[in-house]
């Protein structure tokens, strides 16, 4: 029989870590999506050269390792003496990171709405606002949702990096147990299983949505 010294308490410790993972993900995705929506509409609405500065800044978040972004943000807030907790710092950095990707998803989805459809909407007398809310967003949502789900899962996985700032999320909790119990493979497998359970069903759902919507088109 397989024996382990992993107790129920230890398992609870890991699940608590998973809770932190989910919380960081939730704040990051919520904040990032709101920013991404705003930036995305701006990017889609104005000529590319007008939004170049915005695009440039957002691109930095996609071209520098997330770990370095976290370290820099934490160092900066310490220097500035803001006294922001690592948890909040992590959420802010991850939200900006999410926004950088979300902006491109939103921009692409809006661009995917055919110009003729929009012209048709406007020619029916819809205002810009009505065109946006009644025509563009519903159509763009179909394009954006599968990618957005992918982004959310990506952020959940990337949130593991906040352990570097001393936050005990799922992976860090596992690492602590590994050090104490000396059963690395088993404990990491449990951690991996938890990640998998959180991610896989949603990934499947996203893939299915994408497939169904493609068939309907």
């Amino acid at each position, binding site marked *: 029989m397989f024996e382990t010294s992993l107790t129920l308490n230890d398992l609870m410790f890991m699940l608590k870590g998973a809770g932190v993972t989910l919380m960081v993900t939730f704040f990051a995705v919520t904040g990032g999506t709101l920013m991404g929506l705003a930036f995305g509409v701006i990017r889609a609405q104005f000529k590319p050269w007008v939004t170049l500065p915005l695009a440039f800044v957002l691109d930095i978040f996609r071209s520098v390792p997330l770990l370095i972004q976290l*370290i820099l943000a934490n160092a900066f807030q310490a220097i500035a003496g803001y006294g922001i907790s690592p948890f909040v710092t992590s959420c802010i950095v991850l939200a900006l990171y999410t926004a950088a990707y979300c902006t491109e998803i939103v921009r692409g989805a809006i661009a995917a709405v055919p110009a003729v459809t929009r012209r048709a909407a406007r020619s029916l007398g819809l205002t810009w606002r009505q065109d946006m809310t009644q025509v563009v967003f519903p159509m763009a949502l179909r394009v954006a949702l599968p990618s957005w789900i992918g982004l959310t899962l990506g952020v959940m996985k990337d949130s593991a990096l906040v352990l570097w700032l001393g936050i005990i999320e799922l992976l860090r909790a596992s690492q602590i147990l590994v050090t104490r119990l000396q059963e690395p493979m088993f404990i990491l497998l449990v951690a991996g299983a938890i990640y*998998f359970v959180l991610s896989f069903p949603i990934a499947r759902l996203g893939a299915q949505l994408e497939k169904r919507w493609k068939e309907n088109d």
Partner: protein
Amino acid sequence: MGNYTFQWRQALRALPQMLDGALVTMQIAILSMLIGVTIAVFLAVMRNSKSRWLRAPATAWVEVARNTPALFQIYMAHFGLGSFGIYLSPYVALLAGIAFNNAGYLCETFRGSLRAIPSTQLRAGRSLGMGPATAFRLIVMPQMFRIAFLPTMNQMVWAILMTSLGVTVGMSTDLTGVTQDLNARSFRTFEFFALAALIYYLITKVVMLGARLLAWRLFRY
């Protein structure tokens, strides 16, 4: 800003050391891509095979690679294998973790690009008297290569960014590892890591630019 004074000169003096680290970073990224592409081709063939004994392990690899954090995969290589008495150095563990991740994602890239080529292309080749292998090699493969090229280069950028995770398993020779070492000695965290960020940024830009130029040169159609 309180009474903190930025000392950029100290960071700049460490630039040669950091550039050496950047070379190691590139080395790991390129190696992990070479290994990843090779494994991905096998995984793609396995996933498309009729035998479930070939499909199941390939599917498992792909789903684990895509549904768990890259950092977890590196931990598995570094700590996890310890349960079997296998102790990988940080360098090897990092390389193995990233290669594992690359293979999972690239497998799906390759499968997708194969699906994107209409079956009529193969048929047209066959009708000109080509055997199936010849038609695949001369007609399907080159078109697959084009479709998969930019996504593969994107994965290369991911691989570069992932190398930074090595520091969490004690890697000290890549760009992030070197920077962390310098930081531990001087506590000039912001300056050193800002410089590292700039180097990463430039590397990814150069890689993407090179990929675009290469694509433009290779695919004239």
